[in-house]
């Protein structure tokens, strides 16, 4: 474990140097990240412009949901994982996984933590300011309990998303042509910006697969809104641990079928 922390520290440094070298790339990423953050707020403003509450969530609750989405998924997840999963698809499609399998450390670690997109941290910072503003405008206090529970639930929420992406993208080992599967994952992430009840109203049973995604943002947001229950907490933590375990097992199983692309 200590060795992996040491490697990750090195990766943090290397990625920081990459930012210094490719400043234009950093600025472009930063701009688009902030623009998508603004978009998520504008989209919610448009959708709620004709109603004060939807699926039992008030307009304020929905704006808090968007803020938490920008902190957890738009900010932290995009900073730590999204770019790695972009690479994940190409590594498998181009048959470059052999090189990683030969490296003297865990392949899942190498595929998940190689890149860090530092510009996402700016979005986290802006999203925190936005969420605090919405909460204070609605006179909802941020207590120590709500802050700590938000932090813990946010961690498990990210674990759910990471495991869900890993599980899905592992399928590329069988279907390397579907490297754009990641686009579908970006689209499914968006469902977490809305109340979980929305999924039930979709009337399409296969979409129930997306149920864990609806918990990622809504449960931590409920912690900030002081409406989280013990069952919400247990459900999120249980699903997170199950999915993480499943993703690890499924990856090891899929590796048996990896055939590489070399001749």
């Amino acid at each position, binding site marked *: 474990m200590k060795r992996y922390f040491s490697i990750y520290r090195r990766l943090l440094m290397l990625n920081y140097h990459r930012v210094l070298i490719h400043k234009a790339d950093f600025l472009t990423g930063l*701009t*688009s990240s902030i*623009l998508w953050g603004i*978009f998520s707020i504008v*989209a919610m403003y448009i*959708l709620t412009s*004709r109603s004060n509450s939807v699926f039992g969530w008030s307009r304020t609750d929905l704006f808090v949901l968007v803020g938490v989405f920008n902190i957890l998924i738009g900010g932290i997840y995009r900073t730590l994982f999204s770019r790695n999963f972009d690479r994940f698809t190409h590594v498998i499609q181009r048959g470059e996984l052999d090189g990683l399998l030969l490296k003297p450390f865990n392949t899942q670690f190498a595929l998940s933590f190689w890149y860090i997109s530092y510009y996402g941290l700016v979005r986290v910072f802006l999203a925190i300011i936005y969420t605090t503003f919405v909460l204070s405008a609605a006179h909802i206090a941020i207590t120590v309990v709500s802050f700590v529970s938000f932090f813990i639930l946010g961690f498990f929420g990210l674990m759910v998303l990471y495991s869900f992406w890993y599980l899905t993208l592992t399928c590329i080992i069988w279907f390397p042509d579907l490297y*754009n599967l990641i686009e579908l994952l970006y*689209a499914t992430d968006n469902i977490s910006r809305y109340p979980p009840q929305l999924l039930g109203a979709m009337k*399409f049973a296969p979409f129930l697969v997306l149920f864990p995604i609806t918990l990622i943002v809504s449960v931590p947001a409920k912690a900030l809104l002081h409406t989280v229950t013990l069952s919400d907490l247990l459900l999120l933590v249980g699903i997170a641990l199950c999915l993480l375990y499943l993703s690890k097992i499924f990856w090891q199983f899929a590796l048996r079928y990896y055939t590489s692309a070399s001749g």
Partner: protein
Amino acid sequence: MRYLRLFSLYFQNVFSHRGRPLVYVSTYVISALIYLTFLQGVFHQNANLNTWTLSTVTSYYFILIVAAGTLMMHPEVPIFRDDIEKGELAGRLLKPFSYYWQRFNIELPVRIFQGVSGAVIAYLLTFIYHANLQFHLTFFTALLAFIVILLAYFMCFTFKIILALTALWTTEIRGAQELTDILVTIFAGYIVPVNLLPGILEKVAYILPFSYIIYYPVVAVQGRLAIQTLFSVIGIQIVWLCILGVIFHLMWRKGLMQYSDFGQ
């Protein structure tokens, strides 16, 4: 004839990699269903929203899936990545086809495939949602709607080519591409139909070209536009197309002067 042969070759290519366009269509389906379901929640409180009912709005989002698959293309991605960044433009310039029509031929089979897949999915969704795809069309309005769709296709294609050509000066278009995607999502009618946008956003949507690429073709197919409105939409589309055409020609001529490549 040679364009037809080229088209058939590219169509074979699309068909052999059919999983990829299907994934893109699935993203349109998910987005459309998210927005539709959210609006259904709003409709539980209001039976009518600015001439829209639950059934017409459901039909709108299902047709939107087909429109997004067919009309919202992304030629700027391969142009930027392959032609400009990797320098494959030089090879394309040597081919006995105009660059615009080469790219058009590559894009068209993808759009047809995605459009047909989107139509099949939309049709299946009508059973799941117990909804009808509503088309209140006469022969004449159907003809006008077809012209609106055709012009929308050319508008989108030319606009995206222009976006890609900016890379000849900047060598980086990702920021502009993201900005365009956001503007398109808001103002083309992806989130809600344009006449449901609040206040100033609705007015801006009518000024920008994006609603003429997605929103108007969808409502034209639904038969929600009077003949007079259809003519005025076609008129505005032609104006936009002329403007985009002039910009494309100017940028192409000047951009090629900027372009540098290296070979062996």
